[in-house]
């Protein structure tokens, strides 16, 4: 069985039944074994310490995902039982399943030791001239999966196997001895499997014999099918052993199974097949009929006899009942009543058959419904309105064609950005607009010293007025949009420049210039331009009181395109507050759900310098909100970056852009643990 097939089976089984034992084994034993290997593999040729740690992380992540998926499966299972299968749950489960598959493939495929690996290691080490570093670990690791998955339920064999490997690696035993011991473990393992299959085969054949005696065709066919499967299992096992040991003989295993009643039975019975048992009953049927045909013919022949027997039994029972009724002086059933009961019996059988059929059909329907739901999720919501829409709300008039494909047409959006860049250059060349960084660069390089702020800002104001004039006259939506954004950007630059000046020169009257130039802002983005930094810096610091009670982050800088783009339109999704030396970030669960749905990861803190300082957080849930609290006393340095980053975890095929919501510097003067001032800059 291929790894992919095994993995798919595991996932499918888990979704259909979260109690599925194979899946639980995968969690409990497989991962324990893997961790066991990793723990003992540090510093040797298998992996470096760093690699082992990475693997452990992957496994832990896998475990976490598994738990997550299990809980979802549990919910979905419960809901499906009460016919309340929610679209969101199926969607979430499907996404988790896919993610789990990805993580599983990356964590399991790469890291396991195989029997072939052991063979190879034993051989190489037997040469004595080969060092561990020369062993092609990757190649041999890929060989282990089949063996590993077969061994996962065999804890004792597996641990013994690992012990031998460890002893070999640590030089406690010689390679030849290791090989002998491994072969011994292998044979014991195979013997155990053989024994289990033989036991099942034994039980099935006995059951089959009984069923034939009872004329139970359906059950017999089912049992016979299981017998065939078990025989195939035996053949498959033999073939797989022979792949490892070409000279292997089944009889080699018998020494491990001495005094075993099943192997004795198998030896005695091996020439008695189910077919022969049937043939004994079907001596008169044609020789070339298939087994099923023979059974069918046999059953037909038995029909009359069985019918007679059933009727006879019914008569006996009826007579008995008549006798009992006589004794109890109850009315004796008439012939008609008897026939009616027979008919009832027949009807009941028919009903049971129909119910079975319905059950089967319902199950198929359920599967197709689930598939349909998943398809619907993947293709986006489909509207099923029947009548024409009579009162549509017009949002944008005469949009350029590419706007209509805005959700997916990334190239056009990039083209729009390029247009803006070109326009910026034009503005610079024609009107003398300086982007902020250019302005600072000129000032730094110029021998004349600081640029005259009055002249610079006056020029900018004039430029903005010119742009506004163009904006008002333009009939082109695209052009208007671009100009508006340039104006907004320029106004923002002005504010930033004033803030920068104020910071560098205490005599500079920042508030005066802010008031002066803020009056030039007339667009709806006015508040947006002022930004958090203005609101915060204008507050008077007070060393003993909380300065900032609440900040609201602006999500307008989110840039996400693609089918799974994260749509953040609610500015209240994240709230930040500082009180009692605690910095608290509160996320609505809706946002958390969206982030998860869009496969983004939230990293609230990013250290400016990669120090060893540990910033711990406490998580609390309340009123549909998740709150992360940080103790500012833990932060020893006076500067650290505060950022909330949506990190793209999806591969490039999904076409999701990396997005940065907000990045700022929290400049803290933390004296004796007291917050004095907070500055957030864009």
């Amino acid at each position, binding site marked *: 069985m291929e790894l992919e097939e095994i993995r798919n089976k595991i996932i499918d089984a888990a979704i259909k039944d979260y109690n599925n034992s194979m899946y639980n084994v995968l969690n409990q034993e497989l991962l324990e074994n893997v961790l066991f290997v990793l723990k003992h593999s540090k510093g040797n040729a298998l992996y470096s310490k760093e690699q082992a740690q990475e693997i452990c992380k992957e496994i832990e992540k896998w475990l976490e995902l598994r738990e997550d998926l299990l809980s979802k499966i549990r919910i979905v299972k419960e809901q499906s039982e009460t016919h309340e299968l929610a679209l969101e749950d199926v969607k979430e489960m499907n996404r988790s399943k896919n993610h789990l598959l990805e993580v599983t493939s990356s964590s399991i495929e790469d890291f396991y030791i195989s029997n072939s690996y052991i063979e190879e290691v034993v051989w190489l080490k037997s040469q004595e001239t080969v060092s561990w570093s020369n062993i092609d670990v990757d190649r041999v690791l890929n060989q282990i999966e089949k063996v590993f998955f077969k061994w996962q339920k065999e804890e004792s064999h597996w641990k013994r196997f690992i012990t031998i490997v460890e002893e070999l690696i640590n030089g406690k035993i010689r390679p030849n001895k290791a090989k002998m011991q491994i072969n011994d473990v292998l044979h014991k393992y195979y013997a155990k499997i053989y024994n289990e299959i033989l036991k099942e085969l034994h039980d099935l054949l006995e059951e089959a014999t009984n069923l034939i005696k009872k004329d139970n065709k359906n059950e017999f066919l089912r049992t016979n099918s299981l017998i065939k499967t078990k025989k195939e299992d035996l053949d498959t096992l033999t073939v797989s052993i022979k792949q490892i040991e070409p000279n292997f003989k089944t009889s080699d295993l018998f020494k491990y199974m001495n005094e075993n009643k099943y192997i004795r039975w198998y030896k005695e019975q091996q020439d008695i097949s189910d077919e022969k048992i049937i043939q004994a009953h079907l001596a008169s049927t044609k020789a070339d009929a298939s087994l099923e045909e023979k059974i069918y013919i046999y059953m037909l022949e038995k029909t009359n006899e069985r019918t007679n027997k059933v009727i006879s039994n019914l008569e006996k029972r009826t007579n008995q009942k008549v006798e009992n009724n006589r004794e109890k002086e109850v009315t004796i059933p008439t012939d008609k009543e008897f026939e009616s009961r027979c008919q009832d019996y027949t009807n009941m059988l028919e009903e049971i058959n129909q119910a079975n059929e319905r059950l089967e059909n319902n199950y198929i329907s359920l599967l197709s419904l689930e598939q349909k739901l998943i398809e619907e999720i993947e*293709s*986006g*919501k*489909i*509207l*099923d*309105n*029947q*009548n*024409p*829409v*009579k*009162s*549509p*709300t*017009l*949002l*944008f*008039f*005469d*949009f*350029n*064609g590419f*706007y*209509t*494909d*805005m*959700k*997916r*047409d990334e190239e056009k*959006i990039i083209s*729009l950005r390029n247009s803006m860049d070109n326009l910026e250059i034009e503005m610079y060349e024609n009107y003398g607009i300086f982007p902020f960084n250019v302005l600072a660069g000129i000032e730094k390089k110029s021998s004349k010293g600081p640029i005259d702020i009055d002249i610079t800002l006056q020029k900018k104001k004039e430029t903005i007025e010119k742009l506004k004039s163009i904006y008002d006259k333009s009939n082109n939506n695209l052009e208007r949009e671009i100009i508006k954004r340039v104006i907004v950007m320029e106004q923002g630059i002005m504010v930033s420049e004033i803030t920068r000046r104020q910071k560098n020169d205490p005599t500079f009257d920042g508030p005066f210039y802010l008031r002066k130039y803020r009056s030039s802002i007339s667009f709806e983005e006015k508040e947006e331009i002022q930004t958090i930094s203005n609101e915060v810096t204008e507050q008077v610091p007070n060393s003993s009181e909380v300065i900032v009670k609440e900040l609201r982050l602006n*999500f*307008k*800088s*989110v*840039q*996400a*395109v693609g089918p799974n*783009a994260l*749509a*953040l*339109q*609610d500015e209240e999704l994240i709230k930040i507050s500082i009180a009692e030396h605690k910095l608290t970030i509160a996320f609505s669960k809706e946002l958390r759900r969206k982030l998860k749905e869009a496969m983004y990861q939230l990293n609230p803190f990013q250290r400016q310098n990669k120090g060893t300082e540990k910033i711990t957080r406490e998580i609390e849930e309340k009123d549909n909100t998740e709150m992360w609290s940080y103790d500012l006393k833990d932060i020893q340095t006076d500067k650290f970056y505060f950022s909330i980053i949506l990190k793209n975890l999806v591969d490039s095929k999904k076409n999701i852009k990396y997005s940065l919501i907000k990045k700022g510097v929290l400049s803290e003067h933390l004296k004796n643990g007291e917050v004095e001032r907070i500055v957030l800059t864009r």
Partner: protein
Amino acid sequence: MSERQTFKVQIENGEIQDAQVLAVVTIDNKDYAIYTINKKNGKSDVLASCVEQDAEGYDVLKDIEKEEDKYKITQYIKGLLK
């Protein structure tokens, strides 16, 4: 790109035209359909309606009455453009 869903829209002059669905989005627990109507000049109008369900569970596209709702959808689309 997959083919977009279309449906009929009656515009102001009574004429019925085909609209193409851009997206169905949920804003503040309300579903909105955003769609376009292609015009002869090679450009398009972008329109939106509130999605509700009738008694039989079919979608019904209704007028967006509140100006603030219209503003939110507009902002959403602008957000996609940035």
